[in-house]
């Protein structure tokens, strides 16, 4: 199957190693992965701020870049949520509809499409707390949120359980928002930071050495907060653990 890899703009700039891990991981499972070089962004910074007109050209570019793939895979649930739910500033042609339907977040792609059974190369003998980005959790259903009276499930947990040596710890408020919120962290910095401090303290008191997530945008924010208050937590993307990263 031909997979188009989408690396979010902030990951392109700040965490390219997560993009590399995603690429390598998909290739391990036999995917023919291409990276459209002219890709930029999913449009979320603009739509998140209500500026849909200003997002239209970026959205059109996204569709143009990814029109010819069986699947579009991104190591970011919030970007995938934007594409599947909010890529509406651009005219809804057949091409747009197709791209929107075929865009998947990495974890759900591995779990639901490839249905991966094992990661034999992966070993991560550490205590990890799982962080769920809110768009990933409640937007695209990566796990069952705690408010809802339905049976619990978690795709990231299912995959990570297959990693040798990994130990899970759970914070008291496991699915409370960490305060990143896209442009929220820039325009409401006080509340955002307080939520971030609370989140990392919660993971720390649960005994986490690492916080792992399918969204590095949240992790960047939490890392910044943890460093500011001197917590020795480390942060890693799920792609890196599943691809065999050691600490």
């Amino acid at each position: 199957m031909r997979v188009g890899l989408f690396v979010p703009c902030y990951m392109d700039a700040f965490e390219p190693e997560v993009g590399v891990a995603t690429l390598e991981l998909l290739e391990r499972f036999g995917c023919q992965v291409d990276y459209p070089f002219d890709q930029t962004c999913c449009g979320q910074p603009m739509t998140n701020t209500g500026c849909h007109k200003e997002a239209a050209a970026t959205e059109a570019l996204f569709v143009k870049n990814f029109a010819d793939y069986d699947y579009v895979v991104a190591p970011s649930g919030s970007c995938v949520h934007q594409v599947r739910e909010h890529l509406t500033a651009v005219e809804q042609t057949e091409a747009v509809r197709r791209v929107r339907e075929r865009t998947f977040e990495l974890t759900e792609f591995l779990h639901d499409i490839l249905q991966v059974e094992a990661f034999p190369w992966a070993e991560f003998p550490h205590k990890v707390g799982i962080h769920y980005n809110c768009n990933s959790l409640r937007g695209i259903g990566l796990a069952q949120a705690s408010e809802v009276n339905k049976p619990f499930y978690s795709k990231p947990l299912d995959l990570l359980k297959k990693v040798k040596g990994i130990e899970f710890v759970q914070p008291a408020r496991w699915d409370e928002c960490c305060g990143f919120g896209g442009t929220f962290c820039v325009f409401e910095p006080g509340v955002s930071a307080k939520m971030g401090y609370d989140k990392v303290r919660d993971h720390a008191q649960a005994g986490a050495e690492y916080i792992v997530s399918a969204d590095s945008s949240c992790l960047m924010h939490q890392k910044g907060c943890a460093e500011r208050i001197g917590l020795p937590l480390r942060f890693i993307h799920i792609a890196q653990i599943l691809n065999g990263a050691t600490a």
Partner: protein
Amino acid sequence: MTSSSMPKGVAQPLPKPREPQPRGAVIRGNKPVNQSEAADRFIAAAEHQKMHDERLWTLRQNRDRIAHSLDEWEEMRELASRIKQHTLSHLDQYLEEFEANARAHGIHVHWAADGAEHNRIVHGILADHGAKTLIKSKSMLTEECGLRHYLNGVGIEVVETDLGERIQQLDNEDPSHVVVPAVHKMRADVAQVFSKTIGTDPHNDDIHYLAEQQREKTRPLILNADAGMTGCNFAVAETGSFVVCTNEGNADLSSNVPPLHIASIGIEKLIPKIEHLGVFVRLLSRSALGSPITQYTSHFRAPRTGGEMHIVLVDNGRTERLGMEEFWTSLKCIRCGACMNTCPVYRRSGGLSYGATYSGPIGIILDPTFNRRKYSALPFASTMNGSCTNVCPVKINIHEQIFAWRKVMAENHEIPLMKQAMMKAAGEVLSSPAVYRAAIAVADSALRTLPRFLVYNRLNTWTKQREMPEAPRETFHTWWKQNRMNSKKADRQ
């Protein structure tokens, strides 16, 4: 060490200074309310913020526990949502049915187009009866209409009987939460308010003492009131009756002691039949507090013998909201407060930071309909995490409406010029591959080479409270170009 053993002339250690209660958003006429500024002050009051956050998170946990104990919980939410949507889309019919039944049972029914008319009508009824003192139970609608302020202006004394509302009334401050109006206050704050207004001991902040004092001091006011007023949780068209839910029993006192009972009812409170109470009453207190029912659930169908009952049906923007395709379902709200309890922003900001009658997630989607400019910043006081939507007993898609309001604000230029300019610039960069690649290359190298003080300054809000991410050696684009692009080209040849 007792005071008698202290050497004479040595000063007693000062008691720990009380953390002052953080006050709400600064209101400057019609200027956009700055929620963020008020939230920062709330966070700075660390003890208050901690208590507030923990108290409301406990309510959320109580709600979860009881919701998860009912197999039919999610089905009931769906039923409640559909019953409300049906009623709202046939509201004229149900209002007429309600009015006809209420009148047939001897209730006087009045209609008010807006808050001002509501206040005039209430005043008129009170004046007709020569009523000078009014006791009331909690009603967000009367807050919306500014009733107390109006009545004070025409010489009618109003006494709130709900403990939380009374605290707020005596402190001249709005309620901060629809169910627990003084949740932002610590006991010492209440002690200070009561000592200044109802003569309690300023040094006694024991909560049982404070509550008992309010009970004792309010009781004579209840006994001697000329009239009583309640709000309404549900108005049943089938019987012309209305339901009021309280934990204190103060709605029953307000309605059954004075000879005159006035009820303010928002037109969206209608439900078709008594049997539907079997859904809504089961959802309300479980969502609000995690208890199966409120201590008192009062059903009024006709005045008592020797009493008189009036209803004021109020529009105040509801019919206009009905016509808003993206926002009309906010009218389903049953004022349970579950969205406030779960909202991580609300718990850390306090309800007064929103500067409006309604705060938290429901406030964000209602308040702009009252004043779009004044509340233009509120849709941005959210991370759109979606927890509110999941706890709403009537399934209002709150976080999606918040998203939609952001679009309304941006399109109507109600967002700061700088923000709009930034987004326009971002859109231009992000839609041009070459410009984008050049921009991130610069940002990257800037991060790597600029001295710390240039990065960590007042203009860069990220760094006020967080460390910056480290700059990597290369972008993904660069890595791909160097490691994979040529090999792909080679593969294709």
